[in-house]
């Protein structure tokens, strides 16, 4: 019997394959974007965990030079001979390849901390052999296969673009013989040793560094992606919900007949559930596959932005994680049940004697629309309240959600009202019918229109934010990167040699000195800057006291970046806690793209507070047209490695590149969401087309040609899409404002000026309307080519 019932239920899909296709598309698209984003996030989190676990960074204390002063190499042996189980590490950036090199001493590394031996890694002999080798992840190994590097040993679970080798080898590669960055401290040390403070008074013991707060820093970025994934998921579920609703409605008579013929209700509901779960499984698998492709396509850009923004190394290739697949499938099942819940409930509770007349499907009662509108208005009011008083990341996301969902919920009422208003006034009977009928169609199309609204508004909102950001960022780079050349030397001796040569050849030499420091209790950096017109003229101050530059130069005030000011709640004149004592805030400057707090001191004060800071970096001012030649000459004359002298233009290029990559991801997700919305519209129209026939047949009988009817149907969709677009623009601007003034501030710590780009809206209209038109085209064409017999049947049959 089960087979017969199941066969009967399934026969519906055979007769209406299009509905099946749309249901599967809706569910798999919902799964795809969401799970794609989750795959990206999982990959990134795994990379952070790898980075955190690398060489026991998350387990072992470290000894570091106070204020980032270098560690005297003899300290290692002195500590060992005093019984302290320390192991030296050198870390550095390998300019020719861009690799992060980590040099370790495998002989003294705490047990299990070094990826050597233990079956997976290379043998100690190979690492220690004079030729040496570098341990990298397989992706990096493949990339640098032919590079001028020691032998590469590929090993999983290492961060990308990181190479681990013997300390001697890495010192050679970095050109820093005898240098130690820090010492790892094995916790297994016998009692009764001479205290560290006595053996190495100039070193600080610091707790495990873990991932350096990467997970926290990048949270907001991943939250952004998640928000897009969730949006697409909801839109996908809209499609599934509308298809399932229609399919259940069309099968109501079948359900009733089956029960009249003796199929118990519980059995039928169980079979319906099984049918849905099979469909969900198919759609889920397709969605997972699609999501994997989406993630694989987006990951390189995501990895690029994470590296550029946060210095986080995330591999550019995707690993297939079973947990992710299961989570995605579970999500599809959950989504399917959510989308089908109402329909299933109605089928389960339907009295067998209820009239089987097709209830005008999806012609949601005006009562329901009113409730929905009221709920939407409530959410919009909530959004307004949060916009006024809320702060913090959760509030910002609640604001976004309330704004979008609220607007979507009131949309049917708004569009319905607009259509009725447009239909007022005089006109021919066809015109009257057009508007009246359009108003009647709005509830049925409401889900699709809501999806379209969300996609369009996201597009306007994110587009506005990105364009505003680009405008601001470019201008800011011009101010911030005032020096034409940036010089980085390997030692102070080298710096002095070069400076002696270069000083007479440039307009000014501006030292750049910095130390990692704790600012008002937050980890960040302190910079020392010279008193020079370069800064006075260009520095992007948001707010400053009078004579700010004089006061900074005299050591009476500090400048803080916007991130620090916002996070620590600092205003002009407030004291900011710095190593060596508080200073009043003399000015606040914008510092886009930097996740960390930062403070600027006058150079004299900086040098007195941080005498151990290295003097390796300098900005050089020179006429822009001479910069390139000078850079070449310095590099050649002083045998500087690549990156020793960087031109302002290169840094700008790099920064803009990071910027573009960051928003390439949001752009891509944006387009995908818009695509899903178009599919939603198409699916709704296709499924509704059949129900429309009985309504259109009388008009055909009254003398309207099929072609004319098709044209009217087509126009109707364009009008609706246009109305949605018009409503989407203010919503998108509200969204942009929420992103810029609330989410950005909460997530990144800086605010952007919002600019309007009407040309972009036109562009969006030129994209969205054809998309809507395309979605409406097929149903319209089908109508235009419908055999008259099919229309006639509308009268012959008893079909409501």
């Amino acid at each position, binding site marked *: 019997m089960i087979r017969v019932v199941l066969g009967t239920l399934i026969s519906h899909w055979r007769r*209406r394959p299009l509905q099946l296709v749309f249901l599967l598309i809706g569910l798999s698209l919902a799964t795809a974007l969401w799970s794609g984003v989750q795959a990206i996030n999982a990959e990134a989190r795994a990379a952070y965990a790898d980075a955190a676990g690398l060489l026991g960074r998350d387990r072992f204390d470290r000894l570091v030079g106070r204020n980032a002063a270098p560690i005297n190499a003899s300290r290692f042996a002195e500590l060992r001979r005093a019984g302290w189980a320390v192991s030296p590490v050198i870390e550095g950036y390998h300019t020719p390849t861009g690799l992060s090199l980590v040099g370790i001493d495998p002989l003294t590394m705490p047990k299990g901390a070094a990826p050597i031996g233990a079956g997976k890694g290379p043998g100690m002999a190979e690492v220690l052999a004079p030729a040496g080798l570098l341990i990298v992840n397989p992706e990096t190994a493949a990339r640098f296969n032919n590079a001028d590097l020691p032998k590469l040993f590929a090993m999983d679970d290492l961060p990308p673009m990181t190479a681990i080798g013997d300390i001697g080898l890495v010192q050679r590669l970095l050109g820093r013989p005898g240098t130690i960055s820090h010492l790892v401290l094995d916790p297994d040390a016998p009692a009764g040793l001479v205290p560290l403070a006595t053996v190495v008074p100039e070193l600080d013991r610091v707790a495990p560094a873990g991932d350096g707060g990467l997970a926290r820093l990048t949270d907001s970025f991943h939250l952004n992606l998640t928000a897009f994934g969730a949006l697409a998921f909801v839109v996908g579920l809209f499609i599934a919900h509308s298809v399932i609703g229609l399919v259940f409605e069309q099968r109501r008579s079948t359900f009733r007949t089956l029960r*009249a013929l003796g199929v118990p209700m519980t059995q039928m509901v169980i079979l319906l559930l099984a049918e849905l779960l099979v469909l969900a499984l198919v759609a889920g698998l397709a969605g997972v596959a699609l999501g994997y492709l989406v993630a694989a396509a987006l990951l390189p850009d995501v990895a690029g932005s994470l590296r550029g923004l946060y210095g986080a190394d995330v591999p550019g290739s995707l690993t297939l994680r079973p947990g992710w697949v299961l989570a995605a499938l579970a999500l599809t099942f959950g989504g399917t049940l959510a989308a089908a819940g109402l329909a299933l409930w109605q089928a389960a509770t339907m009295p067998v004697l209820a009239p089987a007349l097709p209830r005008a499907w999806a012609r949601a009662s005006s009562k329901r629309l009113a409730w929905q509108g009221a709920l939407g208005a409530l959410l919009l009011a909530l959004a307004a309240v949060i916009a006024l008083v809320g702060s913090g990341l959760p509030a910002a996301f609640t604001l976004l959600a309330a704004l979008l969902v609220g607007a979507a919920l009131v949309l049917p009422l708004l569009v319905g009202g607009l259509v009725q208003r447009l239909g007022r006034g005089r006109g021919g009977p066809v015109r009257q019918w057009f508007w009246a009928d359009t108003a009647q169609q709005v509830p049925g199309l409401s889900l699709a229109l809501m999806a379209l609204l969300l996609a369009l508004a996201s597009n306007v909102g994110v587009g506005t934010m990105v364009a505003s950001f680009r405008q601001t960022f470019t201008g800011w780079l011009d101010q911030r990167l005032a020096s034409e050349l940036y010089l980085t030397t390997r030692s102070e001796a080298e710096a002095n040699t070069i400076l002696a040569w270069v000083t007479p050849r440039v307009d000014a030499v501006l030292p750049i000195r910095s130390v990692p420091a704790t600012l008002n209790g937050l980890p960040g950096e302190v910079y020392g800057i010279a008193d020079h017109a370069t800064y006075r003229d260009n520095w992007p101050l948001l707010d400053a006291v009078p004579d700010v530059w004089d006061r900074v130069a005299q050591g009476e005030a500090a400048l803080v970046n916007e991130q620090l000011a916002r996070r620590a709640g600092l205003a002009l004149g407030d004291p900011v806690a710095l190593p060596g004592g508080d200073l009043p805030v003399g000015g606040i400057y914008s510092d886009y793209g930097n996740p960390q707090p930062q403070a600027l001191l006058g150079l004299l004060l900086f040098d007195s507070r941080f005498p151990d800071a290295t003097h390796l970096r300098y900005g050089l001012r020179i006429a822009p047209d001479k910069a390139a030649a000078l850079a070449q000459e310095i590099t050649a004359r002083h045998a500087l490695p690549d990156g020793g002298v960087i031109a302002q233009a290169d840094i700008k290029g790099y920064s803009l590149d990071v910027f573009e990559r960051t928003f390439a991801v949001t752009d891509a997700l944006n387009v995908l969401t818009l695509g899903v919305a178009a599919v939603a519209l198409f699916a709704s129209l296709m499924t509704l087309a059949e129900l429309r026939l009985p309504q259109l047949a009388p008009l055909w009988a009254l003398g309207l040609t099929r072609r004319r009817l098709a044209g009217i149907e087509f126009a109707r969709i364009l009008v609706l899409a246009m109305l949605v677009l018009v409503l989407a623009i203010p919503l998108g601007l509200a969204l942009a404002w929420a992103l810029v003034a609330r989410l950005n501030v909460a997530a990144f710590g800086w605010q952007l000026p919002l600019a309007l780009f009407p040309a972009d809206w036109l562009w969006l209209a030129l994209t969205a309307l054809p998309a809507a038109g395309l979605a409406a085209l097929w149903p319209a064409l089908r109508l235009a080519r419908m055999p008259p017999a099919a229309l006639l049947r509308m009268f012959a049959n008893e079909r409501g």
Partner: protein
Amino acid sequence: MLLTIRGLTKTYPTREGPLAVLRGIDLDLDQGESLALVGESGSGKSTLLHLAAGLDVANAGTILLDGAAIGEMSESQRAAVRRDRIGLIFQQFNLIPSLNAGANIAMQARLAGRNSPDWNAHLARAMGLDGLLDRYPEELSGGQQQRVAIARALAARPALVLADEPTGNLDEANADAVLTLMLDLVATAGAGLLLVTHSQRQAARLNRQMRLVMGQSQA
């Protein structure tokens, strides 16, 4: 006795208070016997039929089908009785739109687990549906659809056929033809038939008649 009904009472709640649709109906139907239920609209004919089919439950009274009390059965037991013992024919044809005529005819027999292609073919031939079996309901006329519904009801060889104005949606000529076919087949199959109709002419063609007025039987 195939069907025994005693003191059957059914009340529906309405806004104006409970509405008694059936008020103590007694009825007997033997194997191979046909009984026409006639009466005005709202006299309770259809309700009586639904209760006999176990589609609804009475407030008082008993319905015995082959001696088993339908009112005391669970929902799934009643479903099993419908599936195995009863053939139902409605005024609305109630075909499954996604199955073709042949599959619709075989539907209940397959559910009951006694599908016989030969018997189905015989029914289809007798109903004049030859050559239409591959068509879907929407491709059939009203009369054709109702003949499919009747064939479906008989395909499972039910002991009792319950028909609710089976020809109500057909024109007179069509209605007579369909009724003739149905009576022939019921007689051939030896089933009992309870047929609701408001047509005196049709009722006259059955063994017995029972007239319902305001939920009570009038001899």
